[in-house]
């Protein structure tokens, strides 16, 4: 290419000149093929997809293998970074989910879970997201996607071009949690924060994609989900997730108590503890995922209808609760969640209307805003006054969650019809 520097060469040259990074193993010349081409073989998770998947949460072809990096603290937040091979995901604009395949130049799929270091609870950090590669040198910024996956739940992620093998410094930023915060979250997470960590790209890392274990093909596309992995605790994994170590999920007694979702699917409990099958249609235990079980939500549970395969857990809290500022009215909280794993669904739009017998017009017409509470978890809520038992509540979704999706979630939570509930006052 002579002196027309390729992007990769520019990066290397600048890094070398800046001297700010250890570049051991980074010895490419113009003649070298990019190292990511060295790992090929016949297993390529970026090419395995389920044909004609259902418009629902489904069992993907494989569970991802990844490197867990040490958690880092960032202001009031804690970041749990993970990295794996670049892989496809789906970006959502409006009600379309469009497949995003890795470009030939992506070197890693980065994922960061943002959580409260005091409780370990995953936070809906969807704003002010930035990943800067080599912050002291070329300082190339990316706005990563807020994303959901069955194994990771809600996180920040993107496929990122880095370069050849070497150690890369990364700076990740999140914005303040500029949503309403109740209870123990009131006044917390009001400042944006950033933290740095390094990611080593080496041949072992690039080989991660050859270590992917596929589920039996007969299960691909079945209704169900991989169980969340975050409950394994942080920093405990040296290499990658090993399916043999996840003994927790033997105990899934909760599913009998939460059978409503299974009923909606007219589907038996597929959960299977043997072999590779780390998926099923049962609801996960209360301590293993992002949102509390519907039955544990404070207030009077109005119901758990489904829409677009999301469970729309809806509860009503009285004026005595901390959610109502004043001594009258109610707080209507809608907690949409992924089935099975109870993952949060940020970035959607929710409206509520209430109709009453004898009234031609709706008596309540509200837009809900997202909020966080230590008991309700992440939810969408609104204060409302004029409610009576027996009223018909319609919860509608003018736009579905626009979070990006990993495989198994890209066909769900898109076509979301309104749901109806009958009001039962607290």
């Amino acid at each position: 290419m002579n002196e027309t520097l390729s992007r990769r060469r520019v990066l290397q040259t600048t890094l070398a000149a800046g001297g700010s990074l250890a570049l051991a193993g980074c010895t490419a010349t113009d003649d070298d093929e990019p190292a990511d081409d060295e790992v090929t073989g016949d297993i390529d998770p970026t090419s395995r997809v389920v044909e004609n998947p259902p418009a629902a949460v489904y069992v993907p072809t494989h569970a991802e293998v990844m490197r867990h990096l040490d958690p880092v603290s960032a202001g009031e937040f804690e970041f749990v970074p993970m990295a794996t091979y670049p892989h496809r995901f789906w970006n959502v604009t409006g009600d379309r989910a469009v497949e995003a395949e890795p470009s030939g130049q992506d070197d890693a799929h980065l994922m960061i879970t943002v959580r409260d270091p005091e409780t370990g609870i995953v936070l809906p950090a969807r704003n002010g997201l930035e990943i800067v590669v080599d912050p002291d040198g070329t300082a190339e910024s990316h706005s990563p996607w807020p994303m959901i996956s069955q194994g990771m739940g809600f996180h920040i992620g993107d496929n990122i071009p880095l370069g050849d093998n070497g150690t890369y410094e990364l700076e990740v930023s999140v914005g303040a949690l500029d949503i309403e915060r109740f209870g123990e979250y009131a006044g917390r997470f009001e400042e944006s924060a950033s933290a740095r960590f390094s990611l080593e790209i080496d041949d072992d890392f690039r080989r991660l994609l050859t270590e992917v274990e596929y589920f039996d093909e007969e299960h691909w596309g079945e209704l169900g989900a991989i169980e969340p992995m975050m409950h394994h605790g942080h920093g405990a994994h040296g290499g990658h997730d090993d399916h043999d170590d996840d003994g927790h999920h033997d105990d899934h007694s909760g599913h009998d108590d939460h059978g409503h979702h299974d009923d909606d699917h007219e589907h038996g409990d597929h959960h299977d503890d043997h072999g590779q099958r780390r998926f099923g249609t049962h609801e996960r235990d209360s301590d293993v995922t992002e949102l509390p079980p519907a039955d544990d939500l404070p207030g009077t549970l109005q119901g758990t209808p489904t829409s677009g395969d999301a469970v729309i857990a809806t509860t009503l809290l009285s004026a005595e609760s901390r959610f109502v500022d004043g001594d009258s009215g109610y707080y209507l909280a809608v907690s949409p969640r992924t089935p099975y794993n109870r993952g949060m669904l940020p970035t959607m739009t929710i409206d509520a209307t209430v109709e009453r017998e004898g009234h031609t017009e709706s008596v309540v017409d509200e837009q809900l805003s997202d909020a966080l509470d230590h008991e309700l978890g992440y939810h969408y809520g609104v204060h409302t006054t004029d409610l009576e038992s027996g009223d018909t509540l319609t919860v509608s979704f003018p736009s579905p969650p626009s979070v990006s999706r990993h495989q198994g979630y890209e066909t769900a939570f898109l076509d979301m019809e309104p749901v109806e509930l009958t009001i039962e006052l607290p």
Partner: protein
Amino acid sequence: MALPDRTAVSRREFLKAAVAVGGTAGLAACMEELGTEADAEIPRGDSSGLPERQHAWNAVLKTDDDGNDVPPRHHVLRYVDLADGIDPADAREPLESALTALESAIRWGPDGLLFTLGYSPTYFARFDESLPSSVDLPEPTQLTPLEDGLALDETDLLIHLASDRPDVLLAAEKALFVDRETINEIEITSLSKRFDTASESRRTGFVGAGLPAEKQDVAGISGDSPVPEAAPFFMGYRSGFARTQATEDRVTIGDGPFAGGTTQHVSRIELQLNAWYNQEDHVQRVAKTFSPRHAAEGLVEGVGDNLTNDSKIVPEDVADLVDSARRDGVVGHAQKAAAARENGEPILLRRDFNTTDDDKAGVHFLSLQETIGDFVAVREAMTGEEIADGSGVGPRLNNGILQYLFVRRRGNFLIPPRVCRSMPTPAGTTAEGQ
């Protein structure tokens, strides 16, 4: 940055690189490349009869088949300070002489040279008197939470030079800042003794179909050369349509000592187009660049050639952007821009261009407006804070093209009318001392 091997790149790319390199080396490369050709002759100018407004470029710009003004293809921004110990009054006459000589030497127009001089709030702060109330020129400042780490451009002057011809641009720049130069037998005395022209304050760029595609091998753009050949901007779509641009009259200060002038805002914006090109499709890009209606109805073909002279935003697209965002889950850049119009008319005249300065894809977002307040109002509309607060659309996610833009620097300048373009006092003192 070094010049590329001439044999390895196209002529256009080589000339573009020469502008980016600048200085004697860049000029020499340009002259050598063009030297054997008849059109290398620089068209001679005439300093008399030039418009009162420095920013009155449109009359001499070419127009395309759809009636849109075509901006000059190559641009240089020189951020300069008055040298230590030099009084503005002492620099006034030499500066005006140099500028007049430049205008006599090179024709006013894109085939020759177009330029403006702008003065910052920092420049005016040295005077005891304040700018009149007819001029709105605040210090630049961070305008949104997305701009953490923003640097401010506070040099005294910003000189914007533009031409379709890289050789002319470099010759003019050399004459002004490097050394005495004779162009078309007219001698131009450089300003190097009176101005501090640090090379890091030199920024360059280009705009026009073909140029971004040629120059896409930089940080911020990855994949298999994704920028379309026909795209005038790195983002891949046409913009600056006649009907989306303010008129020169709209952006001109109406009264006071600087009547006939305008204000200039320049942001240095870094682009990160990895996701834009590799993780989204045309329909998504159209929804974010124009509107979800444009995407749903297939209104934008290719880079937008079928849009002729308008972004085709209709009043219904902008009636209630929060409501649109709640319903559509996305709001287009053009939708937000249209919402910032006054009485249906755009208030900014964009003269922005692409850049590969620092080997990063970017934009020098240069806009002219009557007041900096007009720019701030449009910027607030583009930030879409109400939209992000009231819908599932985020501060960046699905909020126009904000996910791909990183504002790094920003500066505000007053472009006085031609009569007092050289070292004006806040009262608009002219070179003749009026």
